[in-house]
């Protein structure tokens, strides 16, 4: 009688490469003032850092080796988890601190990560989704923050609601709230809507309130974009 035993195929241990886009915080001295600014900024967008990998670039901060751990603790208390450090000498640091990365590329180039001098390009780049689609109206009080790319809304955006996108914003309905495109520093982002009743629109930080908009562009299908640092709005119909 033969006992048939299934032979498990041997799985070899594989080391894969992944690229992510992480935000970089660059503190400056005095640290307490920088933390106060950070609190003020994140007060307006409470969950901005939640779940995001953050890199702490200490190159401009002249932070001593013993001050790094308390700073990381203070940031952790604010819900900011430091994934890695830049701009410090790894030898000065205790092993319990996050690792030090070298030669990170700034956003906009290709997404290869440099590790210890050798460059690994992952054949399957794990890209985060670059656009967000929301069906249904955005109700007053809701805040949609999507720094990775475009936001498309199939419905209206109520007054008192806001959309913050790293890319462009497309509203297939009436835009009655606030729309802030190009939030991560993208001056080429645009805002499109079927009916312009916006409270405020902004591209790459340059903004325009309802009062400042031309009256004959209200209630029409419009696009707005940045031209030579001036916010322009034009009708689409």
């Amino acid at each position, binding site marked *: 009688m033969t006992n048939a035993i299934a032979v498990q195929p041997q799985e070899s241990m594989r080391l894969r490469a992944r690229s992510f886009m992480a935000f970089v915080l660059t503190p400056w001295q005095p640290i307490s003032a920088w933390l106060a600014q950070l609190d003020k900024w994140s007060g307006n967008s409470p969950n901005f850092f939640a779940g995001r990998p953050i890199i702490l670039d200490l190159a401009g901060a002249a932070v001593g080796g013993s001050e790094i751990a308390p700073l990381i603790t203070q940031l952790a208390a604010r819900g900011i988890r430091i994934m890695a450090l830049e701009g410090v000498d790894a030898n000065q640091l205790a092993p319990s601190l996050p690792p030090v990365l070298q030669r990170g590329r700034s956003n906009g180039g290709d997404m290869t990560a440099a590790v210890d001098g050798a460059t690994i390009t992952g054949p399957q780049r794990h890209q985060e989704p670059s656009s967000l689609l929301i069906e249904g109206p955005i109700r007053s009080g809701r805040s949609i923050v999507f720094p990775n790319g475009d936001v498309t809304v199939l419905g209206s955006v*109520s007054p008192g609601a806001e959309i913050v996108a790293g890319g462009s914003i497309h509203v297939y309905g009436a835009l009655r709230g606030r729309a802030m495109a190009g939030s991560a520093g993208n001056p080429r982002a645009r805002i499109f809507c079927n009916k312009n009743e916006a409270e405020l629109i902004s591209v790459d930080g340059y903004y325009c309130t309802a009062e400042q908009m031309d009256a004959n562009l209200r209630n029409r299908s419009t696009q707005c974009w940045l031209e030579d640092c001036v916010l322009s709005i034009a009708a689409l119909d």
Partner: protein
Amino acid sequence: MAKVLVVTSGKGGVGKTTSTAALGAALAQAGQKVAVVDFDVGLRNLDLVLGAERRVVFDLINVIQGGAKLSQALIRDKRLETLWLLPASQTRDKDALTEVGVATVIKEMRSKFDWVICDSPAGIERGATLAMRFADAAVIVTNPEVSSVRDSDRIIGLLDSKTEKAENGERIEKHMLITRYDAQRAKRGEMLNIEDVLDILTTPLLGIIPESQEVLRASNVGSPVTLCNATSAPARAYRDAARRLRGETVPITIPVAQQRLFGRLFGQRAA
């Protein structure tokens, strides 16, 4: 099993308590077993509107804290034997409400009634969020004017995020009830049109209740408007709304107050 309905609005003074009483009475008149619950702890009004203010012994907070049984706190309406009221406390405040307590009370009421109607307080804080927490359906009461519409929009957003149903990925049934509608003022542009309100809130319309002095008269005598003057325009509108809540298809009309020709002539002469 009962249906738990929350009557909410965001804005204060738009007609939540009036509508809770009127809808509750209309459903009870149709033979349903109805309990109306006042969640406005500290500023209770549902007992006044129902004429039960002199019979309140125990309230919602007593039941939550175990000081009384539900059956001791429920007050039966003297006119409709299938309508019951669970009043709020007047001396405590919203902090006395706990999620676990409210859950237990609602669960017990589900087994005893066909409809549990929760009269939410105004605002978006604890009292309002707890009133909507365990609801299966919501009636959003809105006046056709800009602040009320904006606040209703906010409340709809909360219904889609802070209720148990929403957290489980289910959709909570939402109905819009427009109250204090005055067709003349809408025509003159002093009030929003029904279409404008629907366009902004994009929620199915349950009914349109016209502005009427009957509402104030009814609350002064401690009776829901559907009982006090059953042929008045708001009473007819509320009854139609109650029928729609039960799933009937009733075409939406704006009832106009029946004007008596002679009444108007004599009125002018006397002036």
